[in-house]
């Protein structure tokens, strides 16, 4: 209470902060402030999210009836390609790292900015340039290869603007690499005095691992797409069987990037949840070091499992066995995390505020997504489930149930820090519950559909699948409402929200020690760290001591 009474008069007369440090468009577009760049990313990925979501909505409408009829088959192919490309490369991969990561890394480690602020801005421009290519490819006629660009279809037979789309992903990829490089150097070299590796917030550990994956995997995607594009342009190639090439080589190279990319999407979500759980359970994190090590382990194992996407291609049986075993092994560090989050909740003083609802949603949905991943990692079961809706349901539980829930949870948790305003709590809770319900109604029926044998990527299906498809489409409508709500009330809070104060959640962590919104240079006085992370026990003792002295 003490802090809020001190904050209130200062927020009434606008204090100098990063938001009112220049109001011109130029001051935003040429900013090198990590906080402003985070907001630039937030606006751009929100746009892409709704573009990708619109494509999904059309697909779900088409699938209301077995015979379809809303869109042509050719357009349907373009819709799922557009949904996949936009959501993977222009929403999920940048989401938490570039928005929350950019905003929070320097704040959490007590630095004034990232190590290379200008490179940070260049990253955003690369992302926007890549996004412009992708959007142009969509407007000019679309691409129908699926987000995986499998050869020789993509390189030889596909119509449409494959080259523009690949160029977009290529350019955005270099933005990702620059971001990853920037974050790694920042986390290594810019930490405040006393902030040792094992005092870092777990969010930083996950962003660090994510950055390593970005830096090591993305170049392979870049060259793979280049090879595909050259093959398409000049009719020469190493993926075309007609010329002695091997299409499977493309799949190996593609998944060498794209499987670790799954961990690029989910690890930051795990990082957010690791911040939320201790704060709203008012307890130190159970097994902090185990979670930190598990994060690194997921990053390392994530590089060694790509072959499980090719169990039914012509990959050798022995390779399949090894990839299967390694895929099972990834579940261990993931399970360690779920176990530790749950153990942190045990005997905690839990409050059900909005960010915590998302954290609970994340744990439950990620667990379902992870366990169904084990079905797919089993060689024999995968033969039955490969390319069915079971796969679709599985990875949406990870990417929407996990990554998007994590992003929204983080957004709600740090929104008061980012904007200095509180949002409408009951609307936010309503949205969180709506999203959770809509998500499960959309995707749980797809597990059953897949198990029954409904293949993915077809605009028509057998009549016996209709009931479950109608349920799924109904769920998607609820989900759409759930996603529209935060857009509305978060924007409203910018104008009508109550001032948040420096630390509305009474959370630990350096980012809560500065004012909201933070000043341009983040901290009035350079912070020094003297305590362990998530020190909620000590904080509780301090708070009760303060109350007693006031009484």
């Amino acid at each position, binding site marked *: 209470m003490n802090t809020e009474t001190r904050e209130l008069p200062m927020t009434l007369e606008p204090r100098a902060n990063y938001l009112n440090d220049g109001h011109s468009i130029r001051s935003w577009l040429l900013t090198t402030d990590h906080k402003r760049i985070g907001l630039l990313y937030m606006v751009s990925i929100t746009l892409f999210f709704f573009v990708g979501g619109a494509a999904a909505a059309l697909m779900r409408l088409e699938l209301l009836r077995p015979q379809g009829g809303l869109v042509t088959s050719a357009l349907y192919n373009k819709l799922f390609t557009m949904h996949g490309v936009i959501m993977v490369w222009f929403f999920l991969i940048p989401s938490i790292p570039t928005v929350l990561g950019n905003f929070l890394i320097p704040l959490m480690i007590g630095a004034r900015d990232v190590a*290379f602020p200008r490179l940070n801005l260049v990253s955003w421009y690369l992302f926007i340039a890549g996004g412009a290519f992708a959007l142009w490819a969509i407007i000019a006629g679309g691409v129908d290869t699926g987000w995986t660009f499998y050869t020789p279809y993509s390189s030889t037979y596909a119509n449409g603007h494959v080259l523009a789309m690949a160029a977009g992903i290529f350019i955005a990829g270099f933005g990702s690499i620059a971001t990853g*490089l920037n974050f*790694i150097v920042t986390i290594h*070299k810019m930490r405040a005095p006393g902030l040792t590796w094992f005092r870092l917030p777990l969010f930083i550990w996950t962003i660090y691992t994510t950055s390593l994956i970005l830096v090591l995997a993305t170049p*392979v995607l870049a060259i793979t797409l280049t*090879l595909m594009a050259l093959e398409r342009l000049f009719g020469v190639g*190493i993926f075309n069987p007609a010329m002695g090439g*091997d299409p499977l*080589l493309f799949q190996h190279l593609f998944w060498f990037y794209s499987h670790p990319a799954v961990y690029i999407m989910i690890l930051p979500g795990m990082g957010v949840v690791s911040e939320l759980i201790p704060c709203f359970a008012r307890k130190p994190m159970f097994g902090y070091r185990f979670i930190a090590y598990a994060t690194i382990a997921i990053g390392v194992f994530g590089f060694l499992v790509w072959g499980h996407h090719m169990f039914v291609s012509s990959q050798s049986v022995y390779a399949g066995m090894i990839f299967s075993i390694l895929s099972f092994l990834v579940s261990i560090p993931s399970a360690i995390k779920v176990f530790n989050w749950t153990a942190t909740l045990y005997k905690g003083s839990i409050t059900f505020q909005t960010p915590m609802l998302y954290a609970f949603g994340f744990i439950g949905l990620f667990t379902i997504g992870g366990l169904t991943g084990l079905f797919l990692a089993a060689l024999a079961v995968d033969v039955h489930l490969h390319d069915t809706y079971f796969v679709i349901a599985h990875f949406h539980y990870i990417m929407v149930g996990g990554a998007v829930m994590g992003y929204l949870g983080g957004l709600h948790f740090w929104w008061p820090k980012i904007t200095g305003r509180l949002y409408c709590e009951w609307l936010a809770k309503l949205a969180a519950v709506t999203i959770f319900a809509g998500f499960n109604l959309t995707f749980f029926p797809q597990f059953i559909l897949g198990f029954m044998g409904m293949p993915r990527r077809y605009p028509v299906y057998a009549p016996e699948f209709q009931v479950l498809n109608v349920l799924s489409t109904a769920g998607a409508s609820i989900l759409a409402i759930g996603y529209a709500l935060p857009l509305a009330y978060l924007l409203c809070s910018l104008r009508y929200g109550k001032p948040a104060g420096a630390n509305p959640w009474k959370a630990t962590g350096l980012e809560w020690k500065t004012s909201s919104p933070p000043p341009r240079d983040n901290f009035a006085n350079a912070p020094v760290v003297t305590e362990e992370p998530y020190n909620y026990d000590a904080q509780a003792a301090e708070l009760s001591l303060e109350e007693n002295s006031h009484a």
Partner: protein
Amino acid sequence: MPDSTLAHAPQFDDASQQRESATFGMWIFLATEILFFGAMFLGYTAYRLAYPAAFAAASRHTLLAFGATNTAVLLISSATMAFAVRAAREKRRTALTVRLLLTAALGMLFLCIKGFEYAREISEHLLPGASFQFDQPYASHAEMFFYLYFLMTGVHALHVTIGVVLIAISGFRAWRTDAFVRNDTAVDLLGLYWHFVDIVWVFLFPLIYLVERHS
């Protein structure tokens, strides 16, 4: 070495933190470059194992004299670059200028030789595509070799070109200003990049020119 008196960007506490960050960032960039080239080397390995005879036959059509000369040119340029880094550290502006410009010139020479080599090969119809001709067996597999050859050396040449431009600019800056006397980090980073480009060539040379040359 406490050099906190030196100028540094506002996000850093002192100049040594800035220098460490920049150097570390360069090493990470080089790691991404290894992965970038690595995918192409993987493709080369896969097809050389699949089509050993065609790769050997195709390799005999490459111009060994050009390749060997270029290897020597690039290795010498690496030496001059190393001397340049030393000159920058010792704050000797004239030596730095000469050595940087010499390195850039050797890089230029490499590109010229490579250009003549490409011209010869194109005139011999070895460029993959419609005009490709190979009068021995396994023509399409030999075409694969030349595709990989042009791709890998082309991407490498692009890196050399970027290096030559940056080193030449730095040479002129060393000549005209005392920027590197105040802070030699940039020369250091350029050196790391240039050595990396050289090392890639050291791997490319045997893989392209020396396949089964002994027989």
